[in-house]
């Protein structure tokens, strides 16, 4: 549940995620890694507050939808529709598979 202590932990997790995202600065690697971690964590059935810290705090702040939209916007502004559709689908499929992969690995370890 969200109390003051948990909220502080979520805040620190999000700060850490923000700086990590700033230093990696590659939207594709970030989203792939974030999806893998998300899949890995949801399969482990951790407690509710730990889930909140890791998923809402770290993973959600680490991956960024606006970075994804900005990446695709560059192709639209260059009027490169083919590349736009190609990258859109590649990112979507690779992320979904990566999350599934993380989920499966986490199940196998237990």
């Amino acid at each position, binding site marked *: 549940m969200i109390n003051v202590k948990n909220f502080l932990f979520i805040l620190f997790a999000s700060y850490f995620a923000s700086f990590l*995202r700033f230093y990696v600065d590659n939207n594709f690697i970030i989203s792939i890694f974030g999806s893998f971690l998300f899949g890995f964590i949801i399969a482990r059935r951790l407690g509710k507050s730990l889930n909140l810290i890791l998923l809402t705090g770290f993973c959600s702040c680490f991956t960024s939808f606006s970075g994804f939209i900005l990446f695709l916007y560059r192709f639209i502004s260059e009027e490169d529709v083919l590349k736009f559709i190609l990258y859109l689908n590649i990112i979507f499929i690779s992320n979904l598979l990566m999350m599934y992969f993380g989920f499966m690995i986490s199940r196998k370890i237990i």
Partner: protein
Amino acid sequence: MDLNSIGCVLLGSTVGLVLRMFVKYKFKIKKGFYINNTSLVNILASFFLGILVALNPINHNLLLLFYVGFLGCFSTFSSFIYDLFVLFKSKQFVRLFLHYIEVIVLSFLFFYVGYFLIKVF
């Protein structure tokens, strides 16, 4: 990275995080094929991104505050993939595809609404 820029990132991410948690836990939304709170957050973030791209700020700290801090923490790509993953696991492939299309279309629609709102006025 000096102290000023670090402060900008911290401030932006705090506001983004609190706003996202507010939207995520205070509303109950179920529209369209699978539009929920996560999609709402992402669509709103696209709207703000459109405004930011149209303004095109040169100041580095302003970019850190709004793009890296606020928008990065406000929008969430992994929760979007998780929504798709839930549909994928329950083998609702048609619904997965429709949800994917509706989120992408709405995001770009709102991106351009924000973009032209600044460009026109």
